[in-house]
């Protein structure tokens, strides 16, 4: 539904922030959800900085043990439930209708409700800090029985569960809207095998949300019932059931928050190489294979439980290197014999390629049970998933922001500040997270606020903490760039980069109906590139 009301009367569009909060225009909604999620990213980042300050030296300096437990719980939970998932879906809400030549988002009011639920869920989760016993302190996967009432009696944990229930349900609703838009609102000529690369990554993202997130809703619902009423989980089978339920969601979510940014870097690499994306069909196939495998690897989080068939989950996890390898092949082949321009979105895309492969190969490493026995639940794992989530998702997110900022706001960002932002992030990221591989290998467990002086871990921890300060600076440079761009308003024009897909065929920012002029013909997944190649 667009802005047409139930009685068919077009209501007067409201202005101001209240108007934005009530808008069913997918662009206002996408930008609003994106901004909300980015706010949670900054908040969770502050928690991470506090943790790195605490860990810079042995002993407790800043906080109590309990305070530290609250920090890592809210850091991980906020990052996954309130930042990464919403920001991934927000990118789809904004861009998918534009990429497929649609005027609107299907079921936009449902998606709007989703945005409100993310805000409400986030506020409820963080309200835990105001309660007497503090915020949730059970870790982002909150294993039962630790998360049961006798072990974690704080009401902050109940708030946290309710917050996740809202955010997870919101993700399901929004994913349904995006997927329905792709299935039903494509422009004439836009077959499924002419969807832009980014839109294809949103298809698999939505499929994974729709299949995996219900397991999270069930897990959290049961956990809440167990805490308030009891009788749901018991004994060892209860502990294992919870883990199965949680990781059935908990692994696909990693790809949910990753794939849209694979799509973003793919668009960036294609545009700034002056070539269309290489190997479109194998790429689409690899995405679908990736999504299918993602639903069958959850047991690798349970290798050390003695309660799963390790060899099966090792097989499915190791098999992931095949679709991942295809994606790298296509990225490099797109650059091959291109005409490469070093704009900021491309820098972040190339940074993504180099950093994510470290997260990916260490992921294959921990997919081997005898190796996982040593490094799981250690800082090695922390390093591994920060290379995938920060080196992958966040670098890809910034590639997306720099690529589409001119489209969304109609103004340009500073390339000079963008380069500073990129290099500070690259250096800060590696200085922060690379030492953690060694700390984990040497035996430092995750989720500890202190470590023995005799351990020899002081230097690596200090280096990592120094790196996190660099990441803070890099983020401030980014915020400065955003503020300058919004104040100076250097007009971007409809297509500042030489874009290849339909969103670059309309003005920046796009008008409410998206495409007032007739659409260019759609004969491939890169219609504007078709026109450009036909002309030269």
């Amino acid at each position, binding site marked *: 539904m667009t802005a047409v009301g139930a009685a068919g009367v077009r209501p007067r569009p409201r202005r101001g922030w209240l108007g934005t909060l009530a808008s069913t225009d997918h662009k206002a909604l996408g930008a609003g959800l994106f901004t909300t999620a980015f706010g949670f990213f900054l908040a969770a980042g502050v928690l991470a900085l506090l943790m790195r300050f605490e860990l810079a030296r042995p002993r407790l300096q800043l906080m109590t043990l309990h305070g530290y437990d609250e920090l890592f719980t809210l850091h991980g939970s906020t990052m996954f439930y309130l930042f990464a998932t919403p920001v991934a879906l927000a990118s789809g809400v904004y861009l998918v209708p534009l990429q497929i030549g649609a005027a609107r988002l299907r079921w936009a009011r449902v998606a709007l409700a989703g945005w409100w639920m993310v805000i409400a869920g986030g506020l409820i989760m963080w309200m835990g800090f105001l309660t007497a016993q503090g915020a949730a302190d059970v870790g982002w996967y909150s294993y039962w029985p630790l998360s049961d009432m006798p072990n974690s009696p704080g009401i902050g944990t109940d708030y946290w569960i309710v917050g996740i229930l809202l955010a997870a349900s919101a993700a399901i609703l929004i994913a349904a809207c995006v997927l329905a838009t792709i299935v039903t609102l494509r422009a004439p000529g836009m077959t499924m095998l002419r969807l832009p690369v980014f839109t294809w990554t949103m298809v698999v993202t939505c499929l994974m949300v729709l299949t995996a997130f219900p397991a999270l809703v069930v897990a959290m619902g049961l956990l809440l019932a167990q805490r308030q009423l009891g009788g749901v989980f018991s004994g060892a089978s209860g502990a294992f059931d919870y883990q199965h339920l949680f990781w059935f969601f908990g692994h696909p979510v990693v790809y949910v928050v990753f794939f849209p940014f694979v799509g973003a870097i793919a668009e960036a690499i294609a545009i700034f190489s002056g070539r269309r994306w290489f190997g479109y069909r194998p790429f689409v196939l690899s995405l679908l294979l990736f999504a299918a495998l993602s639903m069958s690897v959850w047991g690798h989080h349970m290798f050390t439980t003695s309660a799963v068939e390790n060899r099966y989950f090792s097989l499915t996890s190791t098999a992931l290197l*095949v679709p991942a390898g295809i994606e790298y092949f296509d990225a490099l082949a797109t650059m091959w014999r291109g005409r490469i321009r070093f704009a900021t979105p491309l820098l972040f895309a190339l940074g993504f390629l180099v950093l994510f492969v470290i997260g990916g190969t260490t992921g294959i490493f921990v997919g081997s049970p005898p*190796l996982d026995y040593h490094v799981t639940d250690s800082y090695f794992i922390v390093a591994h998933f920060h290379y995938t989530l920060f080196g992958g998702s966040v670098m890809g997110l910034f590639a997306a922001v720099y690529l589409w900022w001119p489209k969304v706001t109609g103004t340009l960002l500073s390339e000079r500040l963008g380069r500073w932002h990129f290099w500070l992030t690259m250096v800060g990221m590696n200085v922060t997270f690379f030492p953690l591989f060694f700390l984990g290998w040497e035996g430092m467990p995750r989720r500890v606020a202190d470590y023995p002086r005799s351990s020899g871990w002081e230097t690596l921890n200090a280096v990592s903490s120094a790196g996190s300060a660099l990441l803070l600076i890099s983020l401030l440079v980014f915020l400065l760039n955003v503020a300058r761009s919004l104040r100076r308003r250097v007009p971007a024009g409809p297509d500042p980069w030489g874009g290849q897909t339909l969103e670059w065929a309309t003005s920046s920012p796009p008008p409410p109906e998206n495409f007032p002029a007739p659409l260019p013909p759609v004969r491939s997944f890169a219609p504007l590139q078709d026109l450009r190649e036909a002309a030269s």
Partner: protein
Amino acid sequence: MRRAGYVAGVTDTRHEYDTLAGLYVPIGAAVVLLVALLVVAFAWRYRARPDDPDEQRRPSRIHRAPRTEALYVLVLACVAALLLWRTYTVEGRTDHAASGRGLGVLVTASKWHWRFDYPRLRIVQRGTDDAPPTLVVPARRTIDFTLRSLDVIHAFWIPDRRFKRDATPGFVSSFSLVFPRTGFWRYGGECSEYCGLRHTWMKFHVAVVSPAAFARWTRARQGGAA
């Protein structure tokens, strides 16, 4: 005859880990370096030179190479198969359950300390929240561990042995380790599954002693307990 790292037919988990990691780490490092190298090389080689009047280059319009890609997928599949074959082989050795012929040690984890029972020797090493216990074991002898938890999920990790196992309440898990070198590892054992407030400090020491010293320790402990 004894090979380096092997102790009389018993699985040395650290040796197995190092062997397997010796396959994974070089392959992983090579892949990372290759990707980084190709990214930098392509970015440099194919960079646009708008200031160069001689540059008349048009970007390539080749967008698919199905045979090359299929061949490449075959290579990837072979790499995956190699890694899995080695993983399965090693896992078979690391995972074998308690033999029953070694020295039995019952490990009990509870918030937030460890306890080690040597049932046949009638010895108990009991830790408290403030004083971690010491796991005393004879060198080069199989230790058959039985692991349980009394409250929440903990995990028993001895980094030097490159091995950990979850302690799930209501579930008993068994595994065997061997400690080839004598020595004392201060905080050499840890809880690695987050288990609540004092998880940070839930550790134990590991003392690996010669068989003769272990016999002396056993007698002293039994005498002391009587």
